[in-house]
């Protein structure tokens, strides 16, 4: 396992918000249960297990069984939160996610931990950068990628109250609170982080913070960048993308995931068929090398200067 993330002032591990929210929900709703694959610690569910030992079902290192058991628990009237490392929950049990959860429509909440390249040093087997492309086509499955602890808690609360399958993708890397006034969490709706008219930066998860910083840097150069937090990848907020395309004429997508089939893919699919504008997709082109998160972000331009450069490129591709 990777070393625990270094604690920084003002930065938070969203897994704490997830675990605390689930415990609070379980206190009030006896139907809530957790299913894990020997991942009590990495899912931060030690407290849940202590409070509700019967309701923490650890099936061991067996992801296909884990997801199937989740479907069965839903059949039996429970609200299961199935939590495991995102790479194994999605990849190893993909057919179960497809057939038992999405196609069957069971009321199961899948929670992918340490997603993206959070396990950078452990290499591509442990990176979860294909998950968006695998899950997006499973239409009934709502896919949410919270950007900070507040949004994580809201997403978990919403998932518990929503009747239907949900996937929540979490990191293990500390993130700050996103600075947006008067926030309300609406699944399927993009959050306007910053208004702007020259280019739209559409980001999700850990990348929203970088996109906001890049917009500030661009402003210093006289470029007005809109920033959207696209916390729901599926279904995509097409209205927000359409507005971004028509009002700015250029889009950059930024995600801690592969650029094929992820957020960038979704935005490009929509704009290509409706409002063709330049779309620069930032993320990973395929398997990436082993290395620290910081190093990998730098290698693939997932930095403030990298995003600013992509924004200028997108603006330069606008049709005259």
């Amino acid at each position: 396992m990777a070393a625990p993330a270094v604690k920084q002032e003002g930065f938070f591990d969203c897994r704490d918000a997830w675990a605390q929210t689930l415990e609070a929900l379980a206190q009030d709703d006896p139907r809530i249960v957790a299913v894990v694959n020997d991942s009590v610690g990495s899912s931060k569910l030690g407290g849940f297990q202590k409070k509700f030992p019967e309701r923490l079902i650890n099936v061991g290192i067996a992801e296909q069984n884990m997801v199937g058991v989740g479907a069965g628990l839903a059949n039996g009237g429970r609200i299961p939160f199935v939590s495991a490392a995102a790479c194994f929950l999605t990849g190893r049990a993909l057919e179960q996610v497809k057939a038992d959860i999405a196609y069957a429509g069971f009321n199961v909440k899948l929670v992918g931990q340490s997603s993206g390249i959070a396990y950078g040093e452990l290499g591509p087997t442990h990176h979860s950068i294909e998950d968006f492309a695998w899950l997006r086509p499973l239409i009934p499955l709502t896919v949410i990628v919270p950007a900070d602890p507040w949004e994580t808690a809201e997403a978990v609360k919403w998932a518990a109250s929503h009747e239907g399958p949900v996937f929540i993708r979490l990191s293990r890397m500390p993130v700050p609170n996103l600075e947006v006034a008067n926030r309300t969490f609406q699944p399927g709706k993009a959050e306007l982080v910053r208004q702007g008219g020259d280019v739209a930066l559409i980001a999700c998860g850990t990348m929203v913070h970088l996109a906001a910083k890049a917009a500030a840097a661009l402003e210093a150069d006289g470029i007005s960048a809109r920033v959207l937090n696209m916390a729901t990848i599926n279904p995509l907020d097409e209205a927000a993308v359409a507005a971004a395309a028509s009002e700015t004429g250029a889009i950059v997508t930024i995600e801690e995931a592969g650029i094929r089939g992820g957020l960038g893919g979704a935005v490009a699919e929509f704009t290509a068929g409706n409002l063709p504008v330049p779309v620069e997709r930032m993320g990973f082109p395929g398997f990436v090398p082993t290395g620290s998160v910081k190093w990998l972000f730098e290698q693939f331009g997932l930095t403030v200067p990298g995003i600013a450069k992509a924004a200028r490129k997108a603006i330069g591709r606008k049709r005259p």
Partner: protein
Amino acid sequence: MLRNDTVATIQEKALWMRRKAFHMVFDAQLGHPGGDFSAIDIIATLYFGVMRYDAKKPDMAERDRFIMSKGHATGALYTALCAAGYYPEDWLSTYMGPNSKLNGHPNRNYLPGVETNTGPLGHGMPVGLGIAIAGQLTSSDYRTYVLTGDGELQEGSNWEAAMTAGHRKVGNFTLIVDRNRLQQGMGTEETNGLDPLDDKFRAFGWDVEILDGHDVAALLDKLDFAPGSRQRPLCVIANTVKGKGVSFMENKASWHHGVPNAEQFDIAMKELV
């Protein structure tokens, strides 16, 4: 009802199911009649001698659950659900047609009484196990039955579930193995052998019963246990004959998804009386 009457009733239902299932396959010119016929006596026993359900309330919380993990054997499941009153008989003639609720594999979204979507093999046991665990958590007394094919046990997900069921002592969970010893292409033992199957489940912490899967009285004896009476999961290895009941289909791997021509259909209907 006296047990002898029950046995006779179940056998009568099973005969009706075989005739209807073969009709469905003949009409659609698609299906898996070999595996339907090996499983029909088991499923008829569950629906007409063992399980608690109300076809008018398919979501009743306290219903016993049945999962057809070998989802290709829809002829056996669909005819049972029809005979149990879940839907009208005229739906059978739509089998695998455009927009039919009777898909090539069972679909809970469309057909009442189907507990989960199956078809890809090795899914039924984990889902059934989850249902059984939910029953334990809520102190409900429903029982959960899963039927797998024997070839299907080559899927690793089953053994993940078998391990968990044994470890957690899920006594309200019963697995029935349709042990016809044939898979799609050839014998199970020629492909990736399963024997000794009983020892494998015992080693995983299960109780095991071996019986003739066409002996309704024996099936009733082993499957209809009092809720709460078992401390360990139960595996019933039902020795069956693929294509059971039709002379030219019996023990032939080619009838896994073979379909009858008109002449074969007539012969089968004469035999199924």
